């Protein structure tokens, strides 16, 4: 599904990703862990196509296509989704109606019929339950006046509606209390399907108690220095990142 090869990327002239290699297959959940500034969010943003990053070397293939050559909206239509670490408030834009436009753009691209207002609203009802988000909330302006937890739930709600094939969740757990974390993780778990790949970018192991990853990667200073199974996450929790900070042995 996703193949990242020797990816180098910089922002404002500073190199942040220094050769990332990552392969994620359909049905897998990968966790990318690392301390602040290691490049986790940059990796998520480069995959989603956020402007402001320069890819200086390497490539990203998504379903065999050159992902980096696509606009952010083309990536979304091809099934890439980014759950934002800091969801943006957009006053004046309706959360559900913008989602309806987005979903129908994606469906049209896939050659599926567009949903009418009725079908869409029943979909909203169904998916709102998934993350226990109030229906009236999702009908408000995008993220405006939402609490931190509501914003994160709205991200997963949007993911549920848009039904992506590759979902990158950027620190979706940060700022959540344990109840909200359970709800968000529960939503993600229900979206775990054999056809979908999920990349969890996280700072803390806590999220991985609720969403059990297939593979855990440690990103340090712009490189993946270690990969393993869920036990690696526990080890990181216990020992921190320091023991990995020496240059990885060849």
């Amino acid at each position, binding site marked *: 599904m996703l193949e990242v090869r020797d990816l180098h990327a910089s922002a404002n002239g500073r190199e942040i990703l220094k050769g990332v290699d990552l392969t994620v297959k359909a049905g897998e959940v990968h966790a990318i862990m690392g301390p602040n500034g290691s490049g986790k969010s940059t990796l998520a943003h480069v995959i*989603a*196509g*956020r*402007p*402001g990053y320069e890819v200086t070397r390497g490539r990203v293939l998504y379903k065999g296509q050159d992902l980096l050559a696509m*606009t*952010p*909206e083309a*990536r*979304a*239509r091809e099934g890439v*989704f*980014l759950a*934002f670490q800091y*969801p*943006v408030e*957009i*006053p*004046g*834009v*309706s959360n559900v*109606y*913008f*989602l*309806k*436009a*987005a*979903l*129908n*753009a*994606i469906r049209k*691209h896939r050659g599926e019929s567009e949903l009418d207002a009725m079908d869409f609203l029943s979909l909203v009802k169904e998916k709102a339950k998934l993350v226990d988000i109030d229906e009236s909330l999702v009908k408000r*302006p*995008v993220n405006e006046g939402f609490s931190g937890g509501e914003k994160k739930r709205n991200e997963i709600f*949007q993911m549920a509606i*848009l039904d992506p094939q590759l979902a990158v969740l950027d620190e979706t757990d940060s700022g959540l209390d344990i109840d909200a974390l359970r709800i968000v993780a529960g939503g993600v778990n229900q979206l775990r399907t054999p056809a979908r790949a999920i990349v969890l970018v996280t700072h803390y192991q806590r999220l991985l108690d609720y969403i059990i990853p297939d593979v855990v990667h440690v990103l340090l200073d712009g490189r993946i220095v270690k990969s393993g199974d869920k036990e690696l996450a526990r080890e990181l929790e216990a020992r921190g990142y320091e023991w990995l900070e020496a240059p990885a042995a060849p």
Partner: protein
Amino acid sequence: MTPASVAGRGGAPTRPPARSTTETDRYRAEFEAFATGRSAPEPAWLREQREEAIARFRERGFPTIAEEEWRFTSVAPIARTAFRRAAPGEGTGVRTADVAAFGFEGAFEGHQIVFVDGRLAPELSSITTEGGLQICSLADVLSREPERLQSHLGRVVTDAASSFADLNAAFLEDGAFVFIPPGLVVDKPIHLVFMSSRGTGVAPTISHPRTVVVAGRGSQAQIVESYAGVPGAAYFANAVTEIVLEDGAGLEHYKVQRESEAAFHVGFMAVVQGRASRFKSHSFALGGRLARNDVRQLFAAEGGECELNGLFALGGEQHADTHTVIDHAHPHCTSRELYKGILDGKSRGVFVGRILVREGASKTDAHQTNKNLLLSREALVDSVPQLEILASDVKCKHGSTTGQLDPAALFYLRSRGIPEVAARSLLVCAFASDVVGRVRIPAVKAGIERHMREHLPGLRDREIQEAVL
């Protein structure tokens, strides 16, 4: 020299030294022809008003950017153009269909009176006198019962207003007169349409429409003033509106300016509010090549409420200048002002908003906000909020921001699959939505939304339109 008016000016006018007067001479000669050409005798007070106005105009001439009130807007293109007044009947080419194009989706249900090139077009108008409500031609009232106008016409707009208001006073011929009798609640909106035709002559035409609105004690009404022109037509609409709200009256006023892209528009609106009256203004400056809009409001008694909302949406090389004055001359009045500007291309916008809290106007509550969105590197906006407080025990605040589309919001929408052009248009519309959302006449709101859609390519998609709140 004229004393400062009650409605106030933004600083003392700096009179330039003797100016080259060929421009003003043209209007003086025109005025003489106009005065001798008028067949019907008119009351002495009106004749005096005209003569005083043209005399002031001769003295002041057109404003220059050396004057504080005009420092962001050069009217040289207006001053140097030899306009002519349209001949009676010249605008008969304007048909119902042309008016309908600006008639708010044809869904406008209410009273409608239409003026073409500044003169009543009876065949396009419905003139009303039901229940004492009077919506008619000013020229009619002046010829039949001028005394009804004596205490209002030229009394709300004071002689210190501007050279353009003086020109309007000198050449005043027709316009709308709306009288809402005390206690009447008008259930349908009143639409005053000022259309400009292409004219049949070579020189561009000039019109000086005057609107007088008297909202009687305790009455309630909605009035829409529309200014529009046949597409491509070059002309100058020099409008003056005078509004009196008697005690306890409520008036919702809309001005929708969709002049042609080659037109000049100068509009001066003066509002005087009686005790505990409520005035809401919604001003949309969307058209024209060069447009200037003045709003001068005065609380003439206690307990009034005033809300000024405005949007200017400009592109190409359009220039639109808005000056507002809210005059808290009495205690216990509340004012809210929100003006937003959207500027694309090489357009230039100006917002100068002055709130004056006079001595003794305690318990004044005034908020003013101006927000501008620049969509291009070459667009420019000047925003000057001014708060002058001479009273104590008041609550006042103002703020002004100018920025570009939020790149984070743009990426957020795109990351969900919304194409960039649609995402941009959506964000532009969202920026305007709080001003547009305050429009309470559905047909007017639809008309403004249609204008926005036509100018924002990304909004062609119906689903994107639906996403605007």
